[in-house]
């Protein structure tokens, strides 16, 4: 591009002394073609330089996945033959294992994914080395990639926590017979999801201060909405509870103040 600009400036200065001819046009086109050619050459040479790195990444991943599969199968076979699950169950009977997550299955799966992770790390470092030698850019791809992986883990964890908390709130609120149980559960879920999204974007360094600001506004808005909704929605409930308490003060209440279920019933 520098050559191109230099040529353009040079030709512009010479235009002042010389009249425009067809030969001048040809020189501009040839310079443009040269510049494009050089750029293409640079990109192709960069691709050729990092191609071994990409291939190394794929090969490392495939080889370690194969090793992981073989190791996992071997372990599964060995542990099943040694009745590892039964021995463990005899020692620690208080631990409940689901059939899909038996100790043998967990160990075998752990080894497989461990090998895949090792392959991924080796492949990425090979790719990063080849990329670093091929380019003069100061930032390393590996550091951003690791940041991306961390953000992905953060996102998955946030989603799982949101789902768990939403279910906990829903079941708890239903058992307390709150009419707005679903709304409450959705509110909690979106609070956690918004928090997670803000953390992920912050981690990826996308958006800068705007994300923090937007998150603050959104989070505050959700909390305010929930407070108003719960406050207004439970007004009747609170007044009923207070009335019931006033009526039965000094006596044993016949019914649970929140659920209204008869207290004379002995469940156990």
């Amino acid at each position, binding site marked *: 591009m520098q050559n191109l600009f230099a040529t353009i400036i040079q030709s512009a200065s010479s235009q002042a002394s010389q009249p425009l001819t067809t030969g001048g046009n040809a020189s501009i086109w040839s310079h443009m073609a040269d510049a494009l050619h050089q750029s293409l050459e640079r990109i192709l040479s960069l691709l050729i330089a990092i191609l071994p790195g990409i291939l190394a990444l794929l090969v490392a991943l495939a080889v370690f996945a194969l090793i992981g599969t073989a190791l996992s199968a071997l372990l599964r076979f060995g542990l099943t033959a040694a009745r590892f699950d039964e021995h463990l169950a005899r020692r620690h*009977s208080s*631990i409940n294992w689901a059939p899909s997550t038996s100790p043998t299955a967990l160990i075998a799966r752990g080894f497989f994914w461990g090998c895949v992770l090792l392959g991924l790390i080796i492949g990425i470092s090979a790719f990063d080395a080849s990329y670093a030698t091929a380019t003069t850019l100061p930032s390393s791809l590996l550091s951003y990639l690791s940041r991306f992986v961390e953000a992905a883990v953060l996102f998955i964890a946030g989603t799982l926590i949101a789902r768990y908390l939403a*279910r906990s709130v829903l079941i708890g*609120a*239903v*058992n307390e017979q709150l009419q707005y149980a679903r709304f409450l559960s959705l509110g909690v879920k979106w609070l956690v999801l918004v928090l997670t999204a803000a953390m992920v974007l912050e981690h990826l360094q996308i958006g800068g201060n705007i994300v923090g600001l937007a998150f603050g506004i959104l989070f505050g808005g959700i909390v305010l909405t929930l407070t108003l909704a719960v406050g207004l929605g439970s007004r009747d409930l609170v007044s009923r509870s207070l009335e019931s308490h006033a009526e039965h003060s000094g006596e044993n209440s016949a*019914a649970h103040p929140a659920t209204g279920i008869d207290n004379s019933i002995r*469940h*156990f």
Partner: protein
Amino acid sequence: MAAADQNPGVLSSSAHHGNALLVLLAAMTPEQLETVLANLTASFPAEELLIASPDTPPANAHPSLRMITAPANNSSWILTATDFANAYQLAEKNEAHAILMLGPESSSLSASELCALANPVLAATDLAVPCYSLAPHAGLVNSAILYPITRALFASRVRFPLAVDLGLSLRMAKCLSDAARRFTAANQGGTPLWPANEAAVAGFAVEQFDVGPRVQLAGPELNTILPLVTGPLFSDIKAKAAFWQRFRPLPPVSNAIFTPPAPATETPADIMPMLSAFRLAYTNLHEIWSLVLPPNSMLKLKRLAATDAPAFSIADDLWARIVYDFLLAYRLRTINRGHLLGALIPLYLAWVASHFNISASGASSEDHIEAVAAAFEAEKTYMVSRWRWPDRFNP
């Protein structure tokens, strides 16, 4: 069920070196302790008794009785792993030949009822369990889940599998102590143990005795009780899967047939709050239930949610399948176990409402409980099929 034997001679004839009977008492008031001690001395020779209590007895009340200090019960309303571990430890230390565990409010048990629990374990029985005469509105978790599932899976007629008063032979106490050790080692000493299930698996002799009405201590509220009781029961069933998957005939009813309590003159309970709890749950927990229950059950629940209060009734086979499906989901960890047991509460309330409706229609409450237990037995094949092939058999 055997009638209460009022003859204290068994104890005298079984006099051995050491103490014949270790009586382990729960924490109670001085008046209650005095009543229990008076009942015990009226039934058994004092020199053969060793009383272990967490409370200090009144001074000079029973000088002939030997008393030791026992650790207080882990929980006031059930017997836990720690209680059984402590019981065996004390019995072994004091060379006792049998143990009588008495829960809180056991002063409401008469001398003859204490004899009925203690004498069999001093003879040949390993586990003596009481059969209480409770009001129709009491012991509902027991009637809806604990009794039917224990009867169907473990072929045991024990009507109160989590009774707080028990008679244990020394080998039964050892068996329970071994089971308890696994929990105490994992710092889970508060977990309830299931003596009837342990006895069934060990092949020990179990006898049940009518002890009449008993004053009950108010336990925690339903939202706490149900997960606390059903979780350990489901875990125990999972651990003993190899035992109950085989067909075993139910032992015949004993000569002294259990007579249900006379219909109490208590006012019928209001089922509307329970029904509204169920309907609210059907609207909100539909997605969670559909992860656990098959479409057929969900369809029946949909119809139930639309049924009016007077006609509201859960079919016994539907209830049995619901409990079995929750048990399977517990085993497979379909959803978080805390969530699963929480989602069972509204369904249980629906069963209670249905049970009250049936009782209000004039049918005997005890007959309905027996019919539910029979339905659990009939649906055991469904349970075993789904246990073995959870993905293949899902009607």
